[in-house]
């Protein structure tokens, strides 16, 4: 875990609540499978309550299909939930039009997993980084772009190049620079290091740590990898079939998980330490309750009457 930020120390006892999520439900219609029945639905986020306070590094862990990315998209107002409420600094996000969300776009930015998919291949790095500033009607100067390139550890000469000319780790640096352009106070990161090689992953995790400290960012970090979340975050919530099954300090979740699903998740992760202690694949399975390891983690709703 990263050392506690200096910011928390200066603050009063009650840090500001950045996100207050109440009873959030996000349901999707699936393609119909029959002419006689209504199309089935899938509940990706199921009655989630959640609070993120200023300066927190909040981790969301879960396996594929657990709804963690959908929840993050709801926080970013990129996805309208079916019901429930998402308040950002006291302002309701649910039901607002895009036009009414400009305040959010200037304060909350997202970094996605695959920078090749999130960066426009036909834009130069300078345009990519300056684009959010233009959208915020605060056109970026060359100096601001150079400043951001410095902050993420890329040479200034990169500004005139295209995304395909960079390696995966460098592209993720560009995506981070772009996210920081509008000086947000909240950074949402969806599996930002999952597509990277191990040696590069460490570089990007260090960079994120530096930036979070330097710019006093509140971080919401989504990952399937408990080890990464434990390293990055101070608070962790574990998600399964759309619900939060456990939350607590990163340390407690990793060392004394309470919920059986979290226990299975912790037990199933191969680590170097355990391998050195003689762990084999069967050791990983020993503590996994058989029903927990079921493969259909996506909750399909019972068919509705037609």
């Amino acid at each position, binding site marked *: *875990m*990263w*050392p506690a930020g200096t910011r928390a120390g200066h603050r009063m006892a009650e840090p500001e609540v950045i996100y207050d999520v109440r009873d959030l439900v996000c349901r999707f219609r699936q393609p119909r499978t029959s002419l006689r029945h209504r199309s089935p639905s899938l509940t990706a986020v199921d009655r989630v309550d959640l609070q993120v306070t200023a300066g927190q590094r909040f981790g969301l862990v879960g*396996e*594929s299909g657990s709804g963690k990315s959908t929840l993050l998209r709801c926080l970013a107002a990129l996805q309208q939930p079916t019901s429930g409420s998402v308040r950002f600094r006291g302002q309701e996000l649910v039901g607002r039009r895009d036009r009414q969300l400009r305040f959010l776009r200037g304060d909350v930015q997202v970094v996605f997993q695959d920078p090749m998919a999130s960066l426009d291949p036909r834009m130069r790095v300078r345009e990519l980084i300056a684009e959010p500033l233009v959208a915020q009607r605060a056109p970026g100067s060359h100096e601001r772009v150079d400043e951001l390139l410095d902050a993420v550890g890329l040479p200034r000469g990169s500004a005139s190049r295209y995304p395909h000319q960079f*390696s*995966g*780790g*460098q592209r993720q640096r560009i995506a981070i620079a772009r996210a920081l352009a509008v000086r947000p106070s909240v950074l949402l990161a969806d599996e930002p290091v999952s597509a990277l*090689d*191990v*040696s*590069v*992953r*460490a*570089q990007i*995790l*260090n960079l994120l*740590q530096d930036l979070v400290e330097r710019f006093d960012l509140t971080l919401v970090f989504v990952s*399937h990898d*408990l*080890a*990464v979340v*434990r*390293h990055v975050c101070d608070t962790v919530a574990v998600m399964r079939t759309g619900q939060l099954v456990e939350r607590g300090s990163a340390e407690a979740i990793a060392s004394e998980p309470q919920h059986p699903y979290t226990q*299975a*998740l912790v*037990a*199933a*992760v*191969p*680590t*170097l*330490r*355990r*391998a*050195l202690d003689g*762990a*084999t*694949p*069967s*050791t*990983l*399975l020993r503590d*996994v309750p058989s029903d*927990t*390891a079921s*493969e*259909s*983690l996506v909750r399909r709703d019972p068919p509705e009457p037609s």
Partner: protein
Amino acid sequence: MSADALAAAHPQDPSVSVLEVRDLTVATGGHTLLEDVTFSLGPGERVGLIGESGSGKSLTALAVMGLLPEGLTAGGTVQLRGVETDLLRIGERERSGLRGRRLGMVFQEPMTALNPLMRVGHQVAEVLRIHGTVDDREDATRRAQQLLADVELPDPVRIARRYPHQLSGGQRQRVMLAMALANGPDVLICDEPTTALDVTVQAQMLQLIAAGVADRTSGLLFISHDLPVVATVCERLLVLYGGRIVEAGPTHQLLTRPRHPYTEGLLAASDLEAVDDQGRLPTIPGAVPPDGRFPSGCVFRNRCPRGDEACTVWPGWTGREDHGVACWYPSGAPHG
């Protein structure tokens, strides 16, 4: 066939490697992508091939399987126990007689490796029938169901009638494993078999692979970029960087006393619990150069903390084939 006669002459002899790869080199046009890769695989032995993207892991697997894409040429020798001719030099017909029978392979992405138009039970049965392991159609169907049950698929009779798209990623990967193990291969190659899977499903898959090769005393070549996964499965490791094996050794020794600076860096970067007092992770500077543009001499020298003039020349291998290092300045005392 004489090959089978030879294999029968020394079955399961632990002193005879099931697979011997010597000086394997893969090149395209002017680029050398893989150079002097040498290793062997004993019966029942689990060997891990570890490296980052672009290091040549998958190329090694494809070259051994004889599945290199057009335009790539392989040099060196690949010897399978009981087959007199070098696998790189035998004809495609003979080679396809070995693939699926003596050599099994599990790929990372089962959706592209399975036939989308064929029921999975039929695909497993086909492997048995093509190689003449089972002649009778009904027998093959029954055997296929048994193989699906062996990889712990629930209700194998029903699963056998499904098409690949009806299965989850973990289930598809189990079908792949059932196919690869169907004929009791001498060598099983798994190329990132669990990278696309969730951790709980990954743990089950790793267990099935380990059990599958143990039952058949097959040699396992397990390829992954994930050091903790490889360390859990394998007893011996090969570290690949820039198309070269830079270090090899028993898992425990390699992880506790790495000698090549790249192995050290990889280990340090993999361990998210080891941070300095500022909470920062140790890193390897720079990134893996894109396709084959590694420096001459030692391939790691442009990212290496110890690199100097001497490193402009490839250091060569020191130590035994299964326990050694290729570095001018390896850490620790030389092992004997």
